[in-house]
């Protein structure tokens, strides 16, 4: 592990028609790091997440994961390699139960082998135990047979987080996980993200909730109009005049 680079973005560019949603972004995430990605609305943060998980093709640039170029791979292959994500607006399989939502997300190579055999042939034992642990950790054990669509908002957020971890990711992309949460829930989220890092998961955190980002992230990168305008520790970013301009909307240092 050490300081090996998990994710490298080289000149990442995505244009939608004439809109330069992401415009030549270079970014590196080291193993075991929590990198915060912030920026005003429409600055291209979510597009970057979508590009990393392969939702649409790049206009230019490359995405490297563990040193290998994954720019051309389809989304499901990237999951198998170890990249998972959550969504800004929660996306669960509402017609499946909580338990099933986690079961079908277990798609690392090893888990697939485990889940291939039916239960009565001794398959998926380990995978099932893993789900139980996950439900316990996210305090969803009592909802395991509930349809995901019937859960309360906070529970849905937790389930989404759990599901992103179900495939044993090396890199977790969290797209505004604190949106709509109260202070207590954000505190829990904070500790869960830290716990994830202890377990060796690298995290790319996109968040509007500054308190959370400043507290949990090792480094922060700031986007504006699809370009990276700053990168560094929380305090360095906070005192950066370019960043202040971007957020306050002024062009001169006010």
């Amino acid at each position, binding site marked *: 592990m050490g300081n090996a680079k998990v994710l490298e973005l080289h000149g990442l560019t995505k244009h939608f028609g004439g809109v330069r949603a992401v415009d030549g972004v270079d970014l590196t995430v080291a193993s075991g790091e929590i990198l915060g990605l912030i920026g005003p609305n429409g600055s291209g943060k979510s597009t970057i997440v979508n590009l990393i*998980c392969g*939702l649409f093709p790049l206009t230019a640039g490359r995405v490297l994961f563990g040193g290998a170029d994954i720019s051309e791979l*389809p*989304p*499901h292959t990237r*999951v*198998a390699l170890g990249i*998972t*994500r959550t969504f800004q607006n929660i*996306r669960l*399989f*509402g*017609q*499946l*139960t909580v338990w*099933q939502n986690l*079961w*079908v*997300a277990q*798609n*690392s190579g090893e888990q697939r082998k485990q*889940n291939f055999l*039916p239960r009565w042939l001794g398959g*998926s034992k380990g995978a099932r135990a893993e789900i139980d642990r996950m439900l316990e950790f996210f305090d969803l*054990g*009592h*909802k*395991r*047979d*509930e*349809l995901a669509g019937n859960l309360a908002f906070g529970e849905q957020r937790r389930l989404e987080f759990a*599901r992103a971890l179900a*495939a044993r990711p090396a890199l977790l992309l969290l797209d505004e996980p604190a949106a709509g949460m109260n202070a207590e829930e954000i505190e829990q989220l904070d500790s869960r993200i830290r716990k994830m890092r202890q377990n060796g998961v690298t995290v790319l955190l996109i968040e509007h909730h500054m308190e959370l980002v400043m507290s949990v992230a090792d480094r922060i990168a700031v986007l504006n109009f699809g370009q990276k305008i700053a990168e560094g520790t929380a305090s360095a970013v906070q005192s950066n005049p370019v960043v202040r301009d971007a957020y306050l909307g002024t062009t001169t240092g006010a």
Partner: protein
Amino acid sequence: MDDYLIGVLSNIGVISFIALSAYVLLLTGEISFGQQAFFAIGAYAAGIATALWGWPLAAAIVWGAAIGAGSAILVGVPTLRLHGLYFAIATLAFAEMVRILFELLRYQVLIDGEWVGPNGADGFRNIRYIFENDISSLQFMILIYAVLVATLSMFLLLERSRLGVIFRMIGEDETLAGLQGISVARHKVLAAGIGGALAGIGGGLYAHLTTYIEPRSFDVMLGVHSLAYGLIGGLGTAFGPLLGVLIDIGLLEAIRALAGYRMIIFGGLVAILLIIRPRGLLDEKLVHKIGRMWRLILPRGGRVKLGPSGEKI
């Protein structure tokens, strides 16, 4: 048992297969107007196998299923890249193409002084297996239901298996399924193959039930019905499409007064149900509720028992 009842039950059994075949694709969120093509392919393949090649029935049905699955996969690979309406139209076009090809197909062999085999638009007569082997209509009905019960048990296993859950997740949100690491294309082609095999089995049984098939039997009317069965019966369980078949052939048939207007009433019923219950009578929510009640009555060993509000007991 009365001949009429045997006839109706046999028909319900045979049509159930094509209803299940459309249902598999509905699970993955695809609407196919072309399942009748695989029903036709299965019917012709199995009919040719027994009537022209002298195969035993079992082998012929399996052969029909295999050809049905194979052609469904061949069609599925290019067409399943299309979505929604485009896929529906592509399947419809394919099915019509198959029907017209059967109108051109002439493959007859002189057997015992009579020409036997598909004869273009005139159809394929004398698939006489059940008469030559002295299988009564009751025996053949039992055979149909034996195969149907076996198919249904496989469906119940499928729905509890990971594959079944994956079909449902693709049906609900295929982009999201891809982002969970599921190869959507591969699973859809697999679903198409299963659907093709089921339609093929149904076709093979149908050919031997009526002893006579002709291309126009396999037009879009049959395809629309097979889709409608799943949509009215419900997409929550494999019993849904069977309920749909029962409602159409069983219930509406039983109301003799409706005779000539049955199709109009059936169409209206489908339209109304799609508005008030878009996922059919036995939809996922209802099936989940029933399953939950079932578990409360009969908790399985090792499982955490749940109280009504979800607390551990």
